[in-house]
């Protein structure tokens, strides 16, 4: 008999907890759900916290999962705003977008690698498997470990577009997902080459992680050159919605594009829009 008592109690507990959640949820305030790009999620979450402080009674919930999840969630109504870490594609132009910051993409090597500069031709040859030893480009006699990004990532698309490569001819040894995975792989392998977000790489390079950033076309990869628009490989970080922004969403977008969040953007090592 005790079993049923316990089961009843458990049931009662679950229901009361659910009821409690319901009442609280109703009592809670105006809520903005934002979802999408993992690159942008930490930044937008910080902006959201500041926004909540300025507008008491509002809540900004940020969910991560990738640019296309941002678009999918926005389209099916699970999120009010989507985060997309690239320019919108032609078939996505039905969505309304607003750029809040810029990000660059840089080639990185291990700090101990004697190679200091690679021409675009060299990079192309390395990634297409024509050059397979560092000796050829003036480095040590060691096989090159080529790190590439996974299909569908906007970083990959931009990289391919800039170097006019197709993903089919790339001969990669490691395929990574997020930026930090690439940086950790290179930090653990002195003969590796890869490409990641400028901000992340700059932060790590200045914080005792053994990597270095390569100049592209003689333009050094720094937040400054990205900001000046001279660095050739960069992408917009965009917020999107299904309908034109209104109400709280509009207020949030305005806030995210205002100078009031520039310090947050810089703290995440992205470049604020002018």
């Amino acid at each position, binding site marked *: 008999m005790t079993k049923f008592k316990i089961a009843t109690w458990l049931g009662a507990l679950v229901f009361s907890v659910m009821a409690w*959640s*319901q009442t609280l949820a109703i009592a*809670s305030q105006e809520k903005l*759900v934002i979802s999408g790009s*993992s690159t942008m999620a930490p930044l937008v979450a910080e902006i959201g916290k500041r926004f909540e402080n300025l507008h008491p009674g509002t809540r900004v*919930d940020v969910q991560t999962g990738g640019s296309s999840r941002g678009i999918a969630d926005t389209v099916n109504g699970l999120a009010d705003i989507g985060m997309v870490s690239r320019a919108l594609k032609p078939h996505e132009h039905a969505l309304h977008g607003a750029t809040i910051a810029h990000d660059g993409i840089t080639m990185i090597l291990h700090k101990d690698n004697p190679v200091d500069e690679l021409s675009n031709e060299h990079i192309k040859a390395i990634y297409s498997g024509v050059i397979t030893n560092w000796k050829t480009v003036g480095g040590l006699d060691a096989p090159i470990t080529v790190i590439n990004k996974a299909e569908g990532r906007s970083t990959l698309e931009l990289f391919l577009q800039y170097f006019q490569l197709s993903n089919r001819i790339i001969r990669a040894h490691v395929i990574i997902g997020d930026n930090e995975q690439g940086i950790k792989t290179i930090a653990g392998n002195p003969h590796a080459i890869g490409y990641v977000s400028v901000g992340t790489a700059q932060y*790590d390079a200045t914080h005792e992680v053994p990597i270095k950033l390569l100049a592209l076309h003689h333009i050094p990869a720094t937040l400054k050159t990205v900001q000046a628009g001279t660095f050739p490989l960069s992408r917009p970080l965009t917020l999107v919605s299904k309908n034109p922004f209104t109400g709280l969403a509009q207020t949030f977008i305005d806030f995210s594009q205002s100078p009031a969040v520039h310090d947050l953007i810089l703290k995440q090592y992205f470049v604020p829009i002018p």
Partner: protein
Amino acid sequence: MLTQTKDTEERIWTLMIWSSVGLISLGFLWILGDLLWHGWTQLNWNFLFSSPKNSGREGGIGPILISTSLIIGVCMIIAWPIGLGTAIFLAEYTQDHHRFGRLIRGSLDVLAGVPSIVFGLFGNALFCQALGLGFSILSGGLTLACMVLPMLIRTTEESFRAITSDQRLAATALGFSRSTTIWCILLPAAMPGLLAGSILGLGRAIAETAALIFTSGYVDRMPESLLDSGRSLSIHIYDLAMNVAGGNPNAYATAIVLVSLLIIINLTASWIADQWTTSNQLPT
């Protein structure tokens, strides 16, 4: 001559067992030592109770601890009765040829091999969207419950089956009802297995990342209800280690907290089991 070869065999196996255990312990202590080495300096009371700042590079994990406990709580409250009930049903009411039993056992076996990310996407479709719970602690806990069920049921069923039939026969001979037999005789005897299953399930639940990103979400604010989105410890670790430059020290510190939490849970579980086995026996 014969005894001598037998002795050598005994010795060889003793040596093999000790050396493999030594190697395993060494490997695991290496991992744990690595954690402590990197995360120790970040740990203090403030880290446990304050909110994360600057995307988790600074500040603590207070709200994340709360969210994690709530998610795990929901998961266990749902998974325990269903898991225990199914295990008892399979072990005590179905034989190997029982069709319904075989069907359920087979489906659970397959369920055990479903990758966690598929659970995540499924939970997102069922709990977040179809049932309208949104990204919430409730969705996360329910998804985890689905995930740990196969492991919970399998180990519990195993321990029920391992009980010798003498005990059941004796109970029937004494005129006990089935429910009394199960509750007072079999359950205490099956407790170690049930516990092992719970610990494994809990371990899996608390360590889960992929399933939770799509269901309980990413919000690192203090949850106000079970319908709020809440970030779990493992998602926090993943985000800090893979997505936030300079997040490493806090990632390691969070991992230490998670592991300590697990130690506490394990100890409590075995304590409860001891209480249970001593207090729930029939008077003799």
